[in-house]
């Protein structure tokens, strides 16, 4: 088999058993890898209705056909599980050397179930699988874990993914981190923590074979060249932090818990200012030519990675205008292994509730918009579950439900996942994308904002043409996330589906057409939805927080713009229609049949366990 190894490893932490299973070719072909393969395995491995923190909830690490082929930006892996934040699918991506090592183990997926009796880490060296004691790693940051474990091992090439304190304490938005990168959203780190699993260590030397090495090399060369051109200038020269100044000017920068979409002090936080004043180093994932990561000088003399989403969430969203504070807050989130978007989103909710006198105990911390000390004190409190931190560790939705009353009005989430840094009222296609995403408010599983920023549509007005755009964008993302290709390479394709079908054919030796690949994207997305339906999804879950539907934007070029509920409803209907689902958003039997999903848990792609 080329591009795949054709097998998975299932480790049961409760029994200590690990078993290798063959993966059927039909499943790999239909779900590609990465998020697609992970979703398909989640559907089969998660018992219906499983509690996210139950030992039975599978934590799945999925590799993909393009990983390790030398194609730029493809050193990535997916982490899929049932989210403790949303109760639906959590499908996160992370990248770099751990991704390459996962594939070199000689597997396409690693499934972890059960719960270790004591803090443990999994060590895998090719076929050798060991569950090792990790009590000495308790409380350590993911980076400390990496260096401690590598120090213990006699294998310099070993790669480690770990959780921090937040994962150990089952903070519902804890991450799994490797080499400073994170599988960030949806609380995959909390699921890992619930299994008493501190880290996974990999070292492998399985060859990664492709069907047509010369053909793959040729495409890889062309993509590498394109990836170094002007299409990726933003990522190569400034990084994603470049978004902040533009978003502010366009009235799409969520500020003070979405009270505004412009931030008066955006200049100081802009990517341009950060680059000029705080730049330390540029960095890239393994096998990446774009190298978008930027490390900035932090106050303590160290360096800190910063992405736009972190910058927005710990900056304007919380009313913080000092870049040094944002960098310090980001450092804390990395140290504890916290998703920065949900951290910022939950804290912004707490700040608003505190200012409105709705949150008992918040005043003690001094939680108010723009209060740097309070922000910096709250992050460790969340990670360690101390005081008010224990409430905030549940995420904004659960915290608001617990507080009750008006506080629920200010929780800015979809399906429990806090909103990313794209103001929905001034990005109407994105508004729809956020409302219907199976993962909750997510900017990665669709790039619906792309239409808004292209001039293809009027971003300030809703219309029923958006359903098709969002569905198309989700399918496109599903294919990228399953092959896996980084989204920052997406513009380097002229005809994505035909180019990537050609590429995938040369990697796997299977003859993919662009139509098959497009259909795979649709299938993967539908399966995520199908999983959510099984786990209790209802029409009302595809919706946006009330603030967005009742308040108009008070400042900036989008001043006066709102999103009336009926306009959102109309867009959602257009989306269900574009998807071929019923009017309530449920997948129809016909659609399942079309996509080969009708017997998804029974026959067609059933594992030979």
């Amino acid at each position, binding site marked *: 088999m080329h591009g795949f190894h054709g097998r998975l490893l299932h480790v049961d932490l409760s029994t200590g058993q690990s078993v290798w299973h063959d993966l059927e070719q039909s499943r790999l072909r239909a779900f590609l890898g990465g998020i697609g393969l992970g979703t398909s395995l989640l559907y089969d491995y998660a018992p219906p209705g499983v509690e996210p923190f139950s030992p039975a909830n599978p934590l799945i690490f999925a590799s993909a056909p393009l990983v390790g082929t030398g194609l730029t930006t493809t050193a990535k892996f997916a982490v899929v599980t049932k989210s403790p934040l949303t109760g639906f699918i959590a499908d996160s991506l992370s990248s770099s050397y751990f991704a390459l090592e996962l594939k070199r183990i000689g597997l396409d997926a690693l499934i972890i179930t059960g719960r270790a009796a004591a803090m443990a880490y999994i060590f895998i060296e090719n076929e050798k699988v060991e569950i090792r004691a990790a009590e000495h790693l308790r409380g350590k940051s993911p980076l400390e874990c990496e260096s401690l474990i590598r120090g213990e091992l006699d294998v310099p090439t070993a790669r480690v993914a770990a959780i921090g304190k937040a994962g150990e304490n089952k903070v519902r938005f804890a991450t799994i981190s490797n080499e400073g990168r994170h599988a960030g959203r949806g609380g995959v780190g909390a699921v890992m923590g619930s299994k008493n699993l501190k880290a996974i260590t990999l070292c492998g030397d399985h060859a990664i074979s492709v069907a047509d090495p010369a053909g793959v090399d040729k495409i890889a060369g062309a993509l590498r060249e394109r990836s170094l051109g002007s299409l990726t200038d933003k990522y190569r020269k400034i990084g994603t932090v470049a978004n902040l100044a533009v978003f502010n000017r*366009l009235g799409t920068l969520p500020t003070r818990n979405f009270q505004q979409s412009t931030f008066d002090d955006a200049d100081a936080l802009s990517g341009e200012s950060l680059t000029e004043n705080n730049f330390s180093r540029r960095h890239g994932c393994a096998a990446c030519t774009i190298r978008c990561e930027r490390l900035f000088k932090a106050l303590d003399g160290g360096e800190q990675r910063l992405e736009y989403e972190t910058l927005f969430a710990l900056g304007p969203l919380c009313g913080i205008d000092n870049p040094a504070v944002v960098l310090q807050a980001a450092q804390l989130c990395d140290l504890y292994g916290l998703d920065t978007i949900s951290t910022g989103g939950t804290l912004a909710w707490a700040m608003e509730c505190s200012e409105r006198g709705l949150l008992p105990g918040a005043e003690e911390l001094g939680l108010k918009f723009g209060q740097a000390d309070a922000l910096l004190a709250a992050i460790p409190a969340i990670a360690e579950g101390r005081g008010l931190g224990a409430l905030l560790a549940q995420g904004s939705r659960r915290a608001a439900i617990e507080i009750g009353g008006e506080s629920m009005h200010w929780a800015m989430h979809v399906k429990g996942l806090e909103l990313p840094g794209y103001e929905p009222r001034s990005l109407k296609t994105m508004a729809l994308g956020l409302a219907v995403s199976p993962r909750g408010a997510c900017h990665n599983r669709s790039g619906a904002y792309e239409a808004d920023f292209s*001039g293809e549509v009027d971003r300030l007005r809703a219309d029923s043409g958006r359903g098709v755009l969002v569905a198309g964008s989700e399918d496109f993302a599903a294919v990228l996330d399953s092959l896996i290709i980084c989204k*920052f390479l997406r513009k380097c394709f002229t005809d994505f589906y035909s180019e990537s079908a050609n590429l995938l054919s040369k990697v796997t030796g299977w003859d993919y057409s662009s139509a098959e690949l497009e259909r795979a994207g649709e299938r993967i997305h539908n399966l995520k939805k199908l999983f959510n339906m099984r786990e209790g999804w209802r029409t009302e879950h595809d919706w946006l927080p009330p603030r967005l539907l009742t308040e108009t934007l008070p400042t900036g070029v989008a001043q006066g713009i709102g999103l009336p509920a009926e306009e959102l409803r109309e867009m959602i209907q257009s989306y269900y229609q574009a998807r071929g689902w019923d009017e309530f958003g449920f997948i129809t039997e016909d659609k399942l049949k079309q996509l080969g999903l009708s017997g998804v848990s029974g026959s067609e792609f059933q594992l030979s366990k």
Partner: protein
Amino acid sequence: MERDSTTVDAAAVILAGGKSSRMGRPKALLLFDGEPLIAHVVRKLGNIFPEIIVVAAPDQELPPLPVKLARDDVAYQGPVSGIYHGLKASTREICFVTSCDAPFLNLALVSHLLSQISDFDVVVPFWQERFQPLHAVYRSSVAPLLKDQLERGELRPIFLYDKVRTRKIDECEIRRLDPEGLSLLNMNSPADYDAALQLWNKRNSISISVELFGVARMLAKTQLVSLDLAQGATLAQVLSALAERLPVLVGRVITSEGLISGYTCNINGLDFVRAPSAKVSSGDKIFILSADAGG
């Protein structure tokens, strides 16, 4: 160009056959706003007049124009002859008469003059203590009187005004529609011509600002650039003026064809545009940013 194309039941008569002696070359052919002055005046008047007559000297060379051409019998006989031949050639009862060296004709003022003719034979502005016979409205019925004048050798049009019902439009009335009286401005010397050109460029330029984001800002080391451009400028002209101002952007953000791939423009925070032919207006704020909003 005026957008109002409401037509009137009157003709315009343009006198083009003057000597241009102080100018040193034929005024009708002076370049103005990228075209011969006569064409500029014809185009302007074409917005409201269904009939235009150009009165030229015998054998005078003119560019092709969508007008009726009338020729003086004798060269350089002066304005009375020109007005007479123009009125004679007109099929309409009312004629607005002007010279070909009036680049700033104000159609609001011209329309006002036309509106005053009903009980008069001539409507003539009185500006800076002088009648302006070559910016006046005449009834065709005065043609025989002008012929008589010519025969008597009375070469100044104002002799007519005592003989017919003349409505004098005073300065105050003119200023209500044309505060600076520019409609009455004509050019006799090269210095007048230069001054008129400068005034034209000033009156017809627009100011826009360009806001730079991301890589463009880093390269240019500035966030904001103000540019003055010709009326009707397009994005292509914005980019070319920007390239001239900030050569560091050439080849990195801007090329001769527009923005390089990976970059886009947004006008006033609302419309994303990349087409070089997109029009810009005075006061527009043009953002130059990455075409990729991912992150």
